[in-house]
Structure formats: structure tokens, C-alpha cells
């Protein structure tokens, strides 16, 4: 097991480094710098600014300094646009929010999706099955940026039940719509995956054997069917996580939740390189870490995998 984890780490770390180098190089190659303003600054001021942020050194040195600071001090440097804030400040400000509704979305998508899929498979071809299939097909065409306006329309403008945006320290009224908007399409995918893999498992010979032995249906499902049926679903959790991180950008913009996504898009529009870099690296690291966890989980649960 340990050697398996080490082997995966040996892939994960270079991946992250490639991401850092790649984004740094294209950032460096980009036309226009962070200090290009409407009126051109005097060359001396420009030189001072560049010296302050270390932009006058050669690319390799800059990159090395950056990576060194990130890895050793966990310091993403100052923001070029928000003059009095460092990237770390911005991340510390926005990240807890993103994590909160991201976590709940993940829980909702997984739990509801799996339950729906399992029930649909057990009661195959019943109204429950059709309902589940209908929901999962419908939700497929409702990505977060479509769900968000629809939810606001119904729950804020028509029914007036929920506030249309804001965060207020994460009170439940403010969390509901972001969570629903973010989780719907992933819930649908998880439900569909679970259903088809559960159906396959329920038709397997060993399930027939278990039932022939006279085990009650509940026991057959929980003891024999569930584990193998959920394996393909686990491998989908990685991509789902990436999708949710990405989707958080839309959520932050649309619901003004103040998460990391707002900063990302604003920095993208203002060419605030250090903030974009910081957020890209952070989400990249999280994604890679999460994929690692999923892989290990998979290997741990699936007895067929020898590592």
C-alpha cells in the first residue's frame, strides 16, 4: 500500500510542477504587464516597481523564486492589483466560503445521487426508476450557470423564500441555492452511474446465489451488492470534484457569495497575475490531492487491484 501511495505521489508532484511552470511561462510571455495603466508610468517608476516585485530578473530566476516561496513558505506573493493585500490574504478570505458550499454540494450530490441510483436499480422499471432516470436526464442539461438563474427566479422572485445572493457568514438560507445549483448536474451523473452499475451487479451470479441461499433482500443488497456497485462511482468522484471547484466560479459570481471564484474572474479581467497563479496552483494542488485520495480509496476497496 505504501509503495502504491508513493508511486502516485511520484506522479502527482511533477504534475503540479508542470502546472506551475506552464502557467508561469505563458504568463511571462503574455503581452501587457500588471502595471500597464492608461497613462504610461515614467521609466524610473516602472523600473522601481519591477524591482520591487522582482520582475527585472531573468525568467528562470523569477520562476525559481516563486516556486521556492510557494513550496517553502507557502507564500504566493503580493497581489498586483489589490495593492495592500497579498494573495494569501485573498485566499484566506475567499477560500473558507468556497469550501463550505463546495463541501455541502459534494455531500448532497453523492448521497442523493447514490440513493437515487440504488433505489432506481432495486425497483427497476417501476415508477421510481422512471422518475430517477427522468431526473438524471433532465439535470444533465442543467449545468450550474443554468440552474443558478432558474433557482433565483423561482425561489427568490416568485416564492420569495430565499435571498438571491450574499453569504452572511454562511447562514443556511444563503447556502441552499448555491449548493443546489452546484450539485444538480453531478448528482444526475452519479445517479445514472450508480443505477447502471447496480443493475449490472444485481444481475450477477453471486447475487443470485446469495438470494438462492435465502438471504433477505436487504442483506443481499447491503452485504453483497453495494460495495462492487459503488466502485465505478468512486472513480467518478475525482472529476466531479474538479467540476465543482470550477463551478464555484459561477456560483461566486452569480450569488455574490464572496468565494474564491470572484477573485479569480476579477483578477483574470485585471491581469492580476499573482492572484490568478495562486488560485490556479491552489485548485490544481487540491485537485491532484483529491484524485490521489480517490485512487487510494479505490485501491483499498477494490480487492481486484494489486498495487
Amino acid at each position, binding site marked *: 500500500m505504501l509503495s502504491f501511495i508513493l508511486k502516485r505521489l511520484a*506522479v*502527482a508532484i*511533477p*504534475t503540479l510542477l*508542470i*502546472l506551475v511552470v*506552464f*502557467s508561469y511561462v*505563458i*504568463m511571462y*510571455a*503574455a503581452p501587457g504587464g500588471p502595471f500597464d495603466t492608461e497613462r504610461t508610468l515614467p521609466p524610473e517608476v516602472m523600473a522601481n516597481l519591477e524591482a520591487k516585485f522582482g520582475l527585472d530578473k531573468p525568467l528562470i530566476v523569477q520562476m525559481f523564486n516563486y516556486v521556492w516561496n510557494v513550496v517553502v513558505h507557502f507564500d504566493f506573493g503580493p497581489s498586483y492589483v489589490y495593492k495592500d493585500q497579498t494573495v494569501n490574504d485573498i485566499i484566506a478570505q475567499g477560500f473558507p466560503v468556497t469550501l463550505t458550499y463546495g463541501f455541502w454540494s459534494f455531500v448532497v450530490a453523492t448521497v442523493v445521487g447514490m440513493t437515487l441510483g440504488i433505489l432506481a436499480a432495486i425497483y427497476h422499471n417501476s415508477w421510481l426508476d422512471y422518475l430517477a432516470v427522468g431526473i438524471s*436526464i433532465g439535470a*444533465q*442539461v*442543467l*449545468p450550474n*450557470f*443554468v440552474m*443558478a*438563474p*432558474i433557482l*433565483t*427566479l423561482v425561489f427568490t*422572485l416568485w416564492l420569495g423564500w430565499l435571498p*438571491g445572493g450574499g453569504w452572511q457568514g454562511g447562514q443556511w438560507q444563503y447556502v441552499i441555492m448555491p449548493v443546489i445549483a452546484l450539485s444538480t448536474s453531478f448528482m444526475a451523473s452519479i445517479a445514472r452511474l450508480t443505477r447502471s452499475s447496480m443493475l449490472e451487479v444485481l444481475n450477477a451470479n453471486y447475487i443470485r446465489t446469495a438470494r438462492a441461499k435465502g438471504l433477505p433482500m436487504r442483506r443481499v443488497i447491503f452485504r453483497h451488492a453495494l460495495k462492487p456497485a459503488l466502485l465505478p462511482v468512486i472513480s467518478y468522484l*475525482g472529476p466531479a470534484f*474538479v467540476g465543482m*471547484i*470550477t463551478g464555484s*466560479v*459561477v456560483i461566486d*459570481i*452569480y450569488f455574490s457569495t464572496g468565494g474564491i471564484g470572484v477573485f*479569480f*474572474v476579477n483578477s*483574470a*479581467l485585471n*491581469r492580476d497575475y499573482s492572484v*490568478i497563479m495562486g*488560485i*490556479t496552483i491552489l*485548485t*490544481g494542488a487540491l*485537485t*491532484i490531492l483529491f*484524485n490521489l485520495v480517490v485512487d487510494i480509496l479505490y485501491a483499498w476497496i477494490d480487492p481486484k487491484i494489486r498495487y
Partner: protein
Amino acid sequence: MIFGRRTAKSLENADLAPTIEGRSLWADARIRFFRNRAAVAGLVVLILVALFAAFGAYVAPWSNEEVDWSVLGQVDTMGRPSLASGHYFGTDELGRDLFARTVQGTQISLMVGLIAAFIAVIVGTIYGATAGYYGGRIDNFMMRLVDVFMSVPYMFVLILLLVIFGRSILMLFVGIGLISWLDMARIARGQTLSIKNKEFVEAAHAIGVRPSTIIRRHIVPNLLGVVIVYATLLVPNMIIYESFISFLGLGVQEPNTSWGALISEGASQLQYGTLWMLLFPLFFFVITLFAFFFVGDGLRDALDPKDR
């Protein structure tokens, strides 16, 4: 002797055209596809949407850039969808005709979806077939690279690219094309692994056909069925990506527009009660995605031997 209609028909065909064409894999697939009602309905919807995109501009009395000054400032009352004013779908908040803009958005979104899927098919198939055919260390390296790309939050990288190289449709194509081929490469590789052990590949190898020719002449044509299925399922996903980017305002720029941009504009006007700005683009977005998914599923049932 009483024949069923289908039997009678097939006998008739057998008499008239005694070639084997009528029973080829593709003909079989076509028959299976047209028996699937959801898939056929999806195909019809797609054709209608394509016609809308192609000829909608000739129907609209207004162009997509023209501002109707008479409705400006009172869009919520004067800009309603009506046949009399010529704004069939109403106007947007700037008094531009939403029908013409939806036509244009449909054109751009469809184009992005199709081109990105096209890039994915070309690059992904060749990449995956090559990796799968050569195997061993080359395969290992090539697929590791795909793993690396896949574990990156690509949407962030895509936004990075758009910021740095300018927000243009071309860059959007390049950026989306850059990530769209990864899944296709995996699928193509998986299929290649099973195809390359077939006798006809062995035979080709035995008579000294070069590996690149084997891939081109023997492997890729046999991948085609699966590739077509996944390409059809890829188009809606690419449309979603593009709309996502445009929703954030980082994709297509004014005066061009796309479904994502239109949905975003409509959504930002919700509180003024001008619902049509959201609902018309949303309607086209949703039915097109539905149609693509249904057609894709239908094609899979028709072409993918595994699911028969």
C-alpha cells in the same frame, strides 16, 4: 404464405439488389437508430435548430446589432416579444432584437461545439490509436501525459489562456480544443488495445505493412463507430464549456454572442421582470443539449457492439 411487412420488404430488396450492401454494419446501425424514437426526435430537433441558425437571420426584420431606439429605456414594456414590432423574441436590455441575437448565439455555440468535437476526434483518435498500438513504454508515457492534463483544473487554465492571449473566438477554439481530446484519446486507446490483437492486424503486420499505415488503414477505420458516438456526446459538453466561459464574460465578446452570454445577460435582468431575455436562449440551449444527448445515446445503441 403471409409475410410480415419487413420480411416482404427485405425479400423485395434481396431480389432487386442482391449485393451485400443492405446488410452492412452501417445499414444495420441505421435501422437500429431509426427505430429509436427519442433519437429520431433528437435528430429532428437538431435539424430544426440548425435551420434556425442558418436561415433565422433572413426571417428577422432586425439585425443583431441594430438598436431599436423606440424601446430603449422602457424595454420591460415596449420590448416584449410581439409579432407587431418585429421583435419575435423581444429585445435585450439595450434594445437589440433578441431573435437576431439568439440566431447569432446559436450559430456561435453550435460552431464552437462542432469544431471542438472535430479537433477532439482528430487529435484524440490519432493519439489514442498510436499509444494503444505501440504499447509498452510509449503508451505508458503518452497516457501518463493525458493523466497529467486531466488532473489539472482545465477551466482555470483555459481562462488563463483567454486572459493572456486575448479573448477571441479563435482562442476559445484553441483552448477548448486543447482539453477536449483527452477523453477521446483514452477511449480510442482502449479500443485499439482490443483491435490490435485481431488477425487482420497480425496479417498486415506479417506482410510488412508499416505501423503508421496499419494505424491509418486498419486501426482507425475500426475505431470509427465508437469515435462517432463519443463525438456526438462531446458536442453538448463543449457547448456547455463555451457557455460557461461566456457566462463569466470571458468568452465571445460583443457584438458577437453565444448562448452562455445570452443566458448571462438574461439572468442579470431577472429582477426587472423581463423574463424573455433568459427564457428564449435557455430554451434553445436546453433543447439542443437534450437532442444531442438523445442522438448520442441512440447512436451508441446502434453502433456500439458492447451494448447490443
